[in-house]
């Protein structure tokens, strides 16, 4: 199998990236990723990505937290051997507050876990094919091709108005 070449097209304009992404769909080259300095909804739409599944992690965390909070309060209440007058041992209204706070806390833990797991963080491998200008004022499209298509991909990016960077 021929070794792959990784080439990045660097653009200064969001719209140029969108048009390059559309053009790449009908080309023999493969988009690896698009690096942007901020979340560009135009670009994300052009890439036709599915909705993120982070929400499922958040939901799972929230459900767990709700029962954990309620469970903790109930457990502590039942551990008391001293019953105070006619008050219910398990008081739902005050325990709801504990359940609520735990819901939020564990939903956030789930959210963070989802963000890290799905976003592939922490990982320093991505920095191998990365241009530091992409966190400043450039948008980078990283595409791959076989060695003999290298010139074609370079000129493709140039035609789209981008600057070319070849990674070894």
């Amino acid at each position, binding site marked *: 199998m021929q070794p792959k070449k990784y080439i990045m097209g660097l653009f200064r304009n969001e719209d140029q990236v969108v048009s390059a992404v559309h053009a790449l769909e009908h080309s023999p080259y493969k988009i690896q990723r698009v690096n*942007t300095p901020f979340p560009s909804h135009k670009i994300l739409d052009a890439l036709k990505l599915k909705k993120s599944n*982070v929400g499922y992690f958040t939901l799972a965390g929230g459900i767990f937290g709700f029962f954990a909070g309620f469970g*903790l309060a109930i457990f502590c209440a039942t551990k008391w051997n001293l019953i105070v007058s006619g008050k219910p041992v398990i008081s739902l209204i005050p325990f709801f507050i504990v359940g609520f706070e735990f819901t939020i806390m564990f939903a956030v833990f789930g*959210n963070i876990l989802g963000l890290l797991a799905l976003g592939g*963080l922490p990982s320093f491998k991505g920095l191998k094919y990365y241009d530091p200008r992409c*966190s400043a004022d450039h948008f980078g499209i990283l595409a791959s091709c076989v060695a003999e298509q290298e010139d074609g991909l370079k000129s493709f990016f140039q035609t789209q108005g981008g600057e070319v960077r070849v990674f070894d």
Partner: protein
Amino acid sequence: MSALTFAKIDQTVLDTLHPAKRSYWILVALLLLGVLAGAACWGYQILVGIGVGGQNNPVAWGTYLINFVFWVGIAHSGTLISAILHLFRAGWRNPIARAAETMTVFAVCIAGLFPFIHLGRVWQVYYMLPYPNQRYLWPNFLSPLMFDVVAISTYLTVSTLFWYTGLLPDLAAVRDKAQGVRKKIFTYLSLGWTGQHDQWRHYTRGYLFFAALATPLVISVHSVVSWDFALGIVPGWHTTIFAPYFVAGAIHSGLAMVLTLMIPMRKVFGYEKIITMDVLENVAKTIVFTGLIVGFAYGTEYFIAWYSHNIVELESFRWRAVGDYRFGFYIMVICNTLIPLLFLIRKIRRTVVLLFGISILVNIGMWYERFVIIVGGVAHGFSPHAWGLYAPTVIEYGIMFGSFCLFFFLFLLFAKHLPSISMTEMKETLEKGEAHAT
């Protein structure tokens, strides 16, 4: 004036991270001295006993609790700005969101110290943790004080994670411009963030959930703080209005603190093109709104005391206005509700010096609000024979001074070592055409 560009945003923000001048380090050292003075006072209290503070019957809750509520309140506007205004898509919050979030994290940390200080025997704090023990004692989750432990811990955890998540793309931007050891540090801090589409896809979704979760949290936290008082049958405390009243007051004081911090930072770092007058003006307008809510709450308390025909409530509120602590009451009413009305005049809310001055007055007023509520309630309760007065001692003033020094010390360190404006959000705002470029 030249238009704002992505490069200019980066340059302006990253320039602030250059090695600091000597004057900066002198200021940091002075604040550190203040922190140490506060710590020494606390150390003295631990050594000698809680009696070195002025809290005694009938006023068992004094400055420690006042400062606790004050700092929790300050923390609230950070989440308002970063979460609630994010959900409302208010573009003007972007230049100040990072600093406000940071303010939140530091303010909650400092607020969290005060219950420890108030405990006296701080080494026994572990009693609040649920763990099997030979005393058969478990935390009582019927108590609002335990609600508070849970709420404040949750708020600190969530606001810190929210802050760090927002910081991630900017840490990567700093990494990309840094060299040597600094680059290494920021590489690890940014977790290898590259801003690739898949990261953004999950990040934007996750950030939205963060904001959606932080919004009810911020409301619940100060409601829980208010129930520390409202669930006690003390005249002046035992009222259902406390939760919304405290939440509005918290946001009111937090917004004032945002102005107190942003105005000097804007001047020192040359952020005038990013934190524009329009941004400051919008904060001032929000202060008018929260000030009116707070004013309405003050009025409602009096109305209900009169309408209830409850002689204890009536006496409590009469005494609040004409009794021993009337000075606090008048400072509270004037600084929190009347002075912010000056922001109705456009010229005043667009004059930096006046914005700064009024923000400080609101901070003072909000501190006194907590004084009036907390001390005033227990000092003048049900039984006249149990009435009494309270005055803070030097130790309490020392700890309070230390807490303010700690807050500004931490903020100063942050401002010079991490991006104090979200470059990512500013670029997004600029791309959408919402930034005030000239």
